[in-house]
């Protein structure tokens, strides 16, 4: 089966191959299942929704005549409630980047159909997942006010921890994910030796920085907002939240060193309706050109390695999977967090309370 040709050709090839192999099933296979009136996609909303519509949904609507309806926000609890009750309102939903392993383990997702979705050119981490479709990657990075640190900003997590060299109020996420990794890197643990995380060591390192954190952020837009308002001068955040601002020449900069990569993750909920069409839509999101479009709008790299070539030079340095940037970062270990997430959250809350 030829993989380098466009989507339509691939589908035709598949259908031909399939009907040739299974002669008896041929008549039904050649026909597509009935089209639903609409596909409901649940995602994070915000700026992302507009970009997804421009990059993917609009074309899907034009090609199939099926309306794409957006809802938000991402809600893992709701997903489980839907699957448990069999009353599934979403055809496709986004999930948190750390939840891909868990969603598969808990049986909340349908397996992806490789006959419809071509992921052969995806980065290995995105190819490996059987139930989770990952068209983009994002990274938790250090962001700072470039007008405050005029002689160059922090170059590593150790610098983020260095309050003498880089004075000023800081912000970290009010959550153990990313922070434990960052603390260990700041303490000198080599990037390839992070997992399994040395939790005691991480919290000890976090003790050091705690007095200098003026805000523990909870929602994704907070870090960028606080940097713009100069409420803090250093913060961690998801790279796409700073991307548009940096392109618009806001006095912000990000450091990729030690960035913690995660997969933008999408699933078809277990038992959802019209799965064929949902898979068709995901297939559209696998298309390298469209991924590049979306990446240039949002700052979240496409995971199809062929998408790279469609990125314009002015945007390239600002994307997490650009080879130079990629080399500086690590991938979050979802499996570790699935096993330890709840225990870490309790320890985190306890640690927070002990500081009050």
């Amino acid at each position, binding site marked *: 089966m030829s993989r380098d040709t466009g989507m339509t050709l691939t589908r035709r090839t598949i259908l031909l191959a399939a009907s040739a192999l299974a002669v008896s099933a041929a008549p039904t296979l050649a026909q597509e299942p009935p089209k639903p009136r609409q596909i409901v996609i649940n995602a994070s909303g915000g700026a992302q929704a507009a970009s997804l519509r421009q990059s993917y949904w609009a074309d899907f609507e034009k090609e199939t005549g099926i309306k794409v309806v957006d809802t938000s926000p991402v809600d893992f609890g*709701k997903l*489980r409630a839907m699957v448990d009750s069999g009353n599934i309102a979403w055809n496709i939903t986004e999930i948190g980047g750390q939840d891909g392993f868990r969603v598969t383990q*808990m049986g909340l997702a349908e397996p992806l159909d490789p006959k419809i979705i071509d992921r052969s050119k995806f980065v290995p981490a995105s190819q490996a997942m059987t139930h989770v479709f990952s068209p983009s990657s994002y990274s938790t990075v250090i962001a700072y006010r470039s007008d405050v640190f005029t002689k160059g900003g922090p170059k590593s997590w150790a610098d983020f921890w260095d309050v003498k060299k880089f004075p000023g109020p800081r912000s970290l996420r009010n959550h153990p994910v990313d922070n434990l990794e960052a603390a260990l890197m700041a303490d000198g643990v080599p990037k390839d030796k992070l997992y399994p995380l040395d939790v005691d060591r991480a919290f000890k390192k976090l003790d050091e920085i705690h007095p200098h954190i003026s*805000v*523990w952020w*909870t*929602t994704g837009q907070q870090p960028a907002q606080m940097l713009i308002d100069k409420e803090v001068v250093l913060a961690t955040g998801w790279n796409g939240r700073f991307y548009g601002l940096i392109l618009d020449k806001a006095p912000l900069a990000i450091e990729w060193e030690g960035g913690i990569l995660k997969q933008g993750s999408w699933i078809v909920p277990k038992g959802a309706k019209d799965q064929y069409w949902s898979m068709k839509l995901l297939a559209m999101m696998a298309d390298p050109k469209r991924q590049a479009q979306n990446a240039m709008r949002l700052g979240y790299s496409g995971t199809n390695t062929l998408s790279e070539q469609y990125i314009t030079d002015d945007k390239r340095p600002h994307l997490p999977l650009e080879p130079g940037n990629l080399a500086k970062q690590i991938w979050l270990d979802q499996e570790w967090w699935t096993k330890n997430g709840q225990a870490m959250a309790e320890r985190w*809350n306890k640690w*927070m*309370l002990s500081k009050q």
Partner: protein
Amino acid sequence: MSTADATRAGPPAPRSLRVALAERRAALGAFLLTAPGLIFLGLLFAMPLLQLFALSVEGGTTEWYARVFADGLYTTIFLRTFEIALFVTGAALLIGYPVAFFLATTTPTWRAIGFALVMLPFWTSVLVRTYAWMIILGRNGIVNRFLLDYGFIERPMTMLNTRFAVVLGMVHVMLPFMILPLYSAIVRIDPDLARAARGMGASRLKIFQRIYLPLTLHGVVAGVTLVFVVSLGFYITPALLGGGKVTMIAMVIEQQVREFLAWNFAGALSVVLLAITLAVFWVLNRWVARRVPPAAGQGR
């Protein structure tokens, strides 16, 4: 019982019986009128509540409750939550009482303006109001800018992302809940009572102590209960104004539900919160029932 007694009393019996029947019919009518409300509450409130309880003891185990009290973590969060709710209630009462008093005793024009000012924020989204506080209290916010520009301070004060900001934001949200019951209590008091007291030489403080305070105690308890109970469940305001340094129990429950899908444990936490809330409600009610004769609150 009363019907039976009336029958034994002789001649007036048929009439009493008719009255009793009519009363019963009226009661039935009243019940039917409340039926839609009761069904609504039953389906959308009582049922989920029972389900929540069922989740917390699923499999006949008490382990989830044991975990709530196992180590200091959750009990400390409960205590912190109550502390904050208490601060908020106290501040809302101190601010709300004078406002309610003003509204109840001023001219109709001022009353209309006052009510508009009280209700306008009430109709504004909590999120919007929370962001407004962020703009006001921030390091480069309105207050700090003003104080810096006029040389009152040399470095910006930290107001946002503190417990103070959380309490302030919550009081702002809760004030109408305090003012409205207080207003309805104060407005019922006959102004002649105060006039008579003044005529007999009572000081303003005495008038407040002997007339207003006892006659509005019902309103005070209603307002305090409402504000306190609602404050216990606050979630978004402390998350945004507390800078992550203030943890309230609703935030923890949300985390358990959405992030960890630990619904049994979340159920146990919720049931404990509900039990404590009901206990507070009951104590306040008992206390006021004993302190104030019921007529006083309704007096006219």
